């Protein structure tokens, strides 16, 4: 029964992990950079959910929707602020890495000042509480509720990207920003918007991270960033669908490790990212791409 528990639990958590990492891949698609503040945006999403529940008794399910427009705007403005300056530099990739690293420190410091060091958590009865039963095993409510919220969110994201006119422009800009400009697309505005979408997805994941990680604290960001990075590298940079599959596979690996070799389970993301980068740098679903 342990095996089934690990697989089903892994899939439920994996859907959450897909949501957790897809935003990082989206930001990569928009700007060709690794957003080292990704985990911190997730952390902010968590604090938003906590604040909204504590002060206004707003259900985390509603909070997931509330954070979207706010973070899209924040991401968009941030992109418009930094993109022109980075574009002028000689090594934009490295500089943006350092920039987002600095931003991550700023967010972490401000969160500590505002929310304090202590970990904040939300009562489980803030979401529908009955555990989910399958094959005689029961799974915590937050696992399946977060999966149930993540699925429509991811579906909407995919519809936006693959079925809407703006999504088409996004893909055109990602494919070739020069070609997109001569097709009359305002490439800067489009990539800024997509950048904001990446932030929004991160914030949504953050709302549910409060439950899955057992709380939210100002210092959780970097570890989440590394986990998300492991997943997007595994599933191929720039390919959001790859991230979804990779997230689920990661969830299963992680649960299997939790069940059978619990003391080693923390090694999973690190081993995954190193093994992927060294043996198949283009990821599971990637075509040959210059990474090294």
């Amino acid at each position, binding site marked *: 029964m342990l095996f089934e528990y690990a697989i089903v639990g892994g899939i439920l958590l994996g859907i959450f992990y897909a949501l957790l990492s897809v935003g990082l891949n989206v930001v990569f698609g928009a700007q060709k*950079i*690794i957003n080292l503040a990704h985990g911190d945006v997730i952390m902010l999403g968590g604090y938003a959910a906590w604040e909204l529940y504590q002060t206004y008794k707003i259900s985390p399910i509603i909070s997931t929707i509330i954070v979207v427009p706010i973070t899209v705007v924040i991401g968009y403005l941030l992109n418009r*602020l*930094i993109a022109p*300056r*980075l574009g*002028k*530099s*000689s*090594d934009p*990739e*490295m*500089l*943006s*890495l*350092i*920039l987002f*690293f*600095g*931003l*991550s*420190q*700023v*967010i*972490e*410091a*401000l969160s*500590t*000042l505002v929310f304090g060091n202590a970990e904040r958590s939300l009562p489980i009865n803030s979401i529908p509480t009955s555990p989910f039963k399958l094959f005689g095993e029961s799974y915590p409510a937050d696992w399946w509720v977060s999966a149930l919220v993540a699925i429509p969110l991811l579906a909407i994201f995919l519809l936006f990207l693959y079925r809407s006119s703006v999504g088409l422009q996004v893909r055109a800009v990602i494919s070739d920003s020069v070609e997109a400009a001569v097709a009359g697309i305002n490439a800067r505005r489009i990539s800024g918007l997509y950048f904001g979408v990446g932030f929004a997805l991160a914030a949504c994941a953050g709302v549910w991270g409060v439950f899955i990680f057992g709380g939210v604290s*100002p210092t959780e960001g*970097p570890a989440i960033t*590394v986990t998300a*990075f*492991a997943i997007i*590298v595994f599933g191929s940079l720039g390919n959001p669908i790859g991230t979804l599959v990779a997230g689920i596979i990661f969830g299963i690996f992680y649960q299997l490790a939790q069940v059978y070799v619990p*003391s*080693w389970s*923390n*090694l999973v*993301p*690190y*081993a995954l*990212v*190193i093994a992927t*980068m*060294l043996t198949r*740098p283009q990821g599971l679903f990637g075509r040959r791409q210059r*990474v*090294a």
Partner: protein
Amino acid sequence: MPKTAEIKTLQNTGSKTKTLISPAIATLVPVIGFALAIHVYSNELLLTYMAIYVALAQGVNIMYGFTGYLPFGYFGFFGVGAYVSGLAMLNYNLPPVVAVIVGGLGGALVGAILSPLFRLRGAYFAIGTLAASEAIYTIVANPSLQSITNGPYGLNLANYYSSGMAYGSAIALVAISIIAVSYVRGSRFGLTLKAIRDDPYSASMAGVNVPRQRFYAWLISAAIAGMAGSIFGWATSVFYPQAVFDSSLSVLAIVFALFGGVGSVWGPTIGAVLLYSVYNAIGISNPEYFQLIYGLVIVLLVLFAPRGLLGFWNFFAQKIRRKRVTND
């Protein structure tokens, strides 16, 4: 095009003695400074830590300043050094100073093992080293390995504690790291590293063995971190794995180096001394204020001095140099 046959101020006009004097000053000033500081400020442990950070910032300088590879996982070598030297003392009763050198070798050995990460570029390398160091931490701190590493309970080196010795070693390490940077900067080795940083393929067509040169820089950098970790463990005497495998160690070392200016000899020393002092003034009691300050410093540096990041020192030097050229 400017007529500039007479402007020979940039390089290769300095005499041999001159090229030796400036690194000597860059080494002696901080060494003497640390030696005297203990008479003014009596918190020896704190000064030891400051010296360790100077060495770490110089280690980052060798790696990032001269090859362009940013090691987010630099703390991994630090932790390995602390453990290798600590276990060498505990298990083989090695004298601490010898153990420090062994710790440096341990750092370099791990550096050699991790050298395949050089196949990765830019951000991939930075995060790859971070993941590798986190993996090493997870292994060292693992309860299953308690018989070897004492798992999550860390090491107790209290029996080897010796006031003054650890501080002296830290000062020696500062000297070693600055001499290493001066050597790299002034030598053919450094010249080829800079060429590689600008354009690896072009460098190889100039006959440079690109992977080997990078590898050497990486080993020097890893050995410095290994020794720094060894001295940290020795001076701290009781430590847990999360104290020596702490990603904020890399963070601070990188910030100090960037703030002072990578690629220069003085920059990281000044950056580490200044910012670590600030850290002690406000950072111990209010770490979040300190974090906020250096986070903002990084963001502002990237946004408003995108070509530089070489810090204020180089920025001013360049300005002065330009002025001189236009005045001629």
